[in-house]
């Protein structure tokens, strides 16, 4: 009596569920979107709407007509159409955030940028006329360049072969490089910091050092490259 009932339930579950593992007895889906498939993504760039009608190409015109008819999703709360919003800075703030305290993370990042600007302006005023042109004062440019200098070019992958795990040099995706650069920066600032130094002070020091291609984060990147170079014999263990 019980066995055919259980079998009936399993068969019913199998037939109701379109994707595999979406329905199991006792479990309900929690992560679903309240938007249907016809909802379009919102356009955050203000410049797109400021363009006069004549400059638009044919496909842009059809896209705008489509947007007038189809429903559009609400924009996420962490994105803005302001000129000050920067996706890299947002990503960095999120990675620095602990326990959901975005206010604290954002204030640290703003204070870091301010500290960088102050240091560069001090250097600018103390420098001679010829050197003044080469000093970069824009903290956003310094941040992006420092991050780019910290990104590794080749990463190491763990590949198991014949019972042993080898560290095989392999290319990295852009997202992975950016993540590693940010992770190294934050870890370095958290671990090797005097407990009486503020985080924004230490971060500004590390960013300025990375901008000049020196400092512990750049050293860590070089260590990764040296490991990859030492293991170049295993490069053929990759299969992708």
């Amino acid at each position, binding site marked *: 009596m019980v066995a055919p009932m259980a*079998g009936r339930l399993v*068969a019913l579950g199998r037939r109701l569920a379109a994707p595999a593992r979406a329905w199991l007895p006792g479990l309900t889906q929690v992560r679903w979107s309240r938007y249907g498939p016809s909802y379009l993504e919102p356009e955050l760039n203000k410049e797109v709407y400021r363009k006069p009608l004549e400059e638009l190409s044919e496909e842009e015109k059809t896209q705008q007509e489509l947007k007038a008819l189809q429903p559009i999703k609400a924009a996420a709360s962490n994105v803005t159409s302001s000129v000050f919003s920067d996706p890299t800075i947002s990503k960095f703030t999120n990675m620095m955030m602990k326990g959901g305290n975005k206010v604290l993370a954002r204030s640290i990042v703003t204070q870091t940028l301010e500290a960088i600007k102050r240091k560069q302006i001090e250097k600018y005023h103390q420098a001679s006329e010829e050197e003044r042109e080469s000093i970069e004062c824009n903290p956003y440019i310094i941040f992006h360049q420092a991050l780019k*200098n910290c990104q590794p*070019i080749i990463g190491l992958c763990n590949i198991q072969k014949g019972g042993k795990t080898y560290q095989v040099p392999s290319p990295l995706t852009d997202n992975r490089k950016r993540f590693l650069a940010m992770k190294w920066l934050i870890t370095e600032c958290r671990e090797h910091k005097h407990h009486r130094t503020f985080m924004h002070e230490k971060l500004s020091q590390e960013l300025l050092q990375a901008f000049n291609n020196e400092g512990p984060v750049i050293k860590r990147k070089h260590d990764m*490259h040296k490991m990859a170079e030492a293991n170049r014999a295993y490069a053929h263990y990759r*299969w992708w």
Partner: protein
Amino acid sequence: LAAPVYPAWLGRLAAGRQRRAPAVRPARPLVLANQVANRRLRLGEATCTTEMSLLMACWKQNEFSDAACAKEIQTFYDCVAKTDVEHKERLKQESLGHMGNLSPKTVNKLLRRFPNITDDF
């Protein structure tokens, strides 16, 4: 299901040639499963190894400085981007089934949508 009991005449279906001792009876029922074994169809090779070795030689000469090896780095990135595009194309073709046999992943997806129904209810 217990071990299936086949009628006796099934063993004599191969009539016309010499009757010999019946072959091994199947231990499990002869029912198609709803998934295929996930074996790697074809072993790929490591891509961009020449560019990588050139880059590493340049690094060894210039003490791992990125400014000195900018050209090698650019060629390496171009190679990686090219092989990425090819890889995605190949995966798409595999899933559509244009390259000979279907991959085990595609077959499993199809079988999950159209399974072999073994129950009566």
